[in-house]
């Protein structure tokens, strides 16, 4: 980047393992913070859990970019003294131990803030810091199960299903945590005082469903799995072209409905019952059948072009192998290929740009590899 990174000069003490904690500090590192990952004496599960690349867990590689790392055993007096020195001048402290563990180590908010009132402290947990489940172990799929989202996902009429990407809740939790840290750092520029942030996996899973839970709160009725369709508007689902390829159509406004009707020139769509979103939602089954028959007469590519020209939201269904060559993804650099210590690998591109520039990515460090150089600089 030609301009300084936004968090240049901010020091992050990263006492996290697995995914939700490490990805939150990765985001801060990508924004320019100096993130010092404290490598635990027992290997982080992210290092060992398969799949692995050149022997290293992909979870570690994906969640620890843009950081330095030192090995410290905080139960040993020498290492603890080093940690305390670091914490005195740190701006952000992030931990994701079980609730209560940080306090046992003297790393709770109250203790840390006494020595460093400007410190922003973050506790990331599975089920929150209070309540009967607070100290239970949690992982992404357990959070998915608890937070209710399997009840709204799946084939119509079937049992609800999990998202079989078991890091979505983890990385969303990480994102919420980084969001709160940035807001707290901005507040600190005005008050000089840090604050404490708590974020939990199941909270994030619930927040991800806010618009669906809103449906339940509004009606008292449990939303059901609807395949690719949405409860809020219709049509808003996947259809198949003559070539049997799937594509999506989402009508989310009256203007888009008018555009669809005009583009398809099918008199059946001019049925007055379909003239409002409420009417289309009420007759969604009939509408879906009508459109399925219509879209089955030409290939998906034809409909993507037709709908695109008309201004109706439509998209192809892409698999992993199609992402790489997709011109929209490539032109906007939405995926990246990064030289890491374990080879050149696909990774995320960062989700934001600043004045058109994306901050640079750097490989996750070899665990504990920065200890010698850091101690030399101490």
């Amino acid at each position, binding site marked *: 980047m030609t301009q300084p990174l936004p968090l240049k000069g901010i020091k992050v003490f990263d006492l996290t393992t697995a995914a939700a904690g490490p990805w939150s500090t990765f985001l801060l590192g990508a924004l320019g913070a100096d993130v010092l990952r404290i490598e635990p004496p027992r290997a982080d599960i992210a290092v060992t859990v398969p799949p692995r690349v050149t022997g290293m867990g992909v979870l570690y590689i994906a969640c620890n970019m843009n950081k330095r790392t030192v090995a410290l055993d905080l139960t040993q007096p020498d290492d603890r003294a080093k940690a305390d020195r670091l914490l005195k001048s740190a701006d952000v402290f992030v931990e994701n131990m079980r609730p209560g563990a940080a306090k046992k180590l003297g790393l709770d908010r109250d203790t840390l803030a006494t020595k460093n009132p400007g410190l922003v402290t973050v506790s990331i947990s599975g089920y929150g810091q209070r309540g009967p489940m607070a100290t239970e172990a949690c992982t992404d799929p357990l959070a998915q199960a608890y937070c209710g989202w399997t*009840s709204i996902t*799946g084939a119509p009429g079937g049992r609800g299903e999990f998202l079989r990407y078991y890091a979505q809740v983890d*990385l969303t939790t990480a994102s*919420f945590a980084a969001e709160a840290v940035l807001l707290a750092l901005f507040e600190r520029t005005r008050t000089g005082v840090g604050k404490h942030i*708590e974020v939990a996996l199941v909270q994030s899973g619930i927040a991800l469903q806010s618009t669906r839970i809103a449906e339940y709160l509004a009606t008292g009725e449990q939303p059901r799995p609807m395949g690719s369709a949405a409860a809020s508007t219709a049509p808003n689902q996947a259809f198949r072209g003559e070539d049997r390829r799937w594509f999506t159509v989402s009508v989310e406004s009256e203007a888009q409905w008018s555009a669809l009707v005009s583009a398809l020139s099918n008199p059946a769509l001019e049925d007055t019952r379909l003239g409002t979103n409420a009417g289309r939602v009420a007759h969604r089954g009939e509408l879906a059948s009508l459109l399925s028959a219509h879209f089955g007469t030409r290939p998906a590519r034809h409909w993507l072009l037709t709908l695109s020209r008309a201004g109706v939201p439509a998209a192809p269904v892409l698999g992993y192998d199609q*992402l790489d060559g997709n011109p*929209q993804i490539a032109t906007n650099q939405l995926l990246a290929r990064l030289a890491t210590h374990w080879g050149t690998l696909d990774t995320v591109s960062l*989700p934001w740009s600043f004045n058109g520039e994306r901050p640079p990515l750097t490989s996750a460090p070899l665990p504990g590899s920065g200890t010698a150089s850091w101690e030399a600089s101490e």
Partner: protein
Amino acid sequence: MNALAGIRVLELLADTAGSATAMHLAAAGATVLKVELPGGDPLREWEPRRPDGFAAAFAELNRGKRSIAQTAGETLETPWLASLIAGADVLIVSHPATSLESVTNLAAMHPRLVIAVTSPFGETGPMSGRPGSELAAQAMSDTFGSLGQIGEAPVRLGADASIVSTAIFTTQAIAAALIVRESTGAGQIVSTSNLGSLLAVRNVIWTALSNPDEWWGFHLDSWTRPPEHGYATSDGTIFFNLWRGDSEDWDRLLVELDLYETATSDPRFSEYGRQAAGTGRYAADLKSTWEAALSNRTSEEAIGLFKEAHANVVPVHDYESLFADPHFPHLGMLREVAGSATPVVALPWEEEGVPWMIPSLDEHGAAIRADGWSAA
């Protein structure tokens, strides 16, 4: 959180993700004005409706804002709107509804302004001028690859993950830009997209798929597995993994579930069942064995058994059972709405505050046209 107290945010004809971003900023204490099209934000027409008449999704994404509706023919140069832009700290717009040229011009005219641009697919490329949707972002990010059954119709993730993720990332970028402005005095343009945001939170799977040593591990084999529903009990569904128990825990569990002979003669149950359940390597193959053993146990009984065996176990909730769960109130995830018995869902970091207001279309239009930000 009052981190943004005193910060003025103008949401100008934003898309759903931009609108969600403005809600996050309101939750962080900012003053937010929502400028809507003459007919109002299309979300006002989404289904279902709350008892107070607001569309459920609209209420969730627009709490804490004030509304002013444009009238036909009004532009960015119309005095009341130009004045609001001039007085704002943050402007949220969406591409393609607002052109990139307009954004550049606004940035030149208002050098302290932080301008956030959200778009469905990114600001350049063949799809940059097209409208998007939650479903489109899921379709193009291979989210469908983690759901449903191979060869069957696509299944969407029920949660609006691209909208929520874009709102989080855009709020991050705005906060970062505000931090920079405190020291430099200069605003900047920050950009995000629904597609980019959803691809970002799928980070782990891209790395997993690109060059694994061996084709196994839950980020790989789950890709081709059948749908995961959890484990049916006699009255519900639970989910568990067996990562922590020892031999005593394991033997006791197997005896209780009458699985001792089955499990001790099948190597897939080795290591105290580590790979036999949850996201383990053989979990899908052994699902029916576990479900047969649990068929005469209630979820409560089964959860008790697994907890005794030091398993990680939870009920698979729907909303009714989630809200009834004794732990749920401790999560603090509901907030009051003024004058309504129907709450809204909180953000994880959101502090308790006064009940939220939900704006009717142009509810604050007359006052804001007359008095600008001081009426906000």
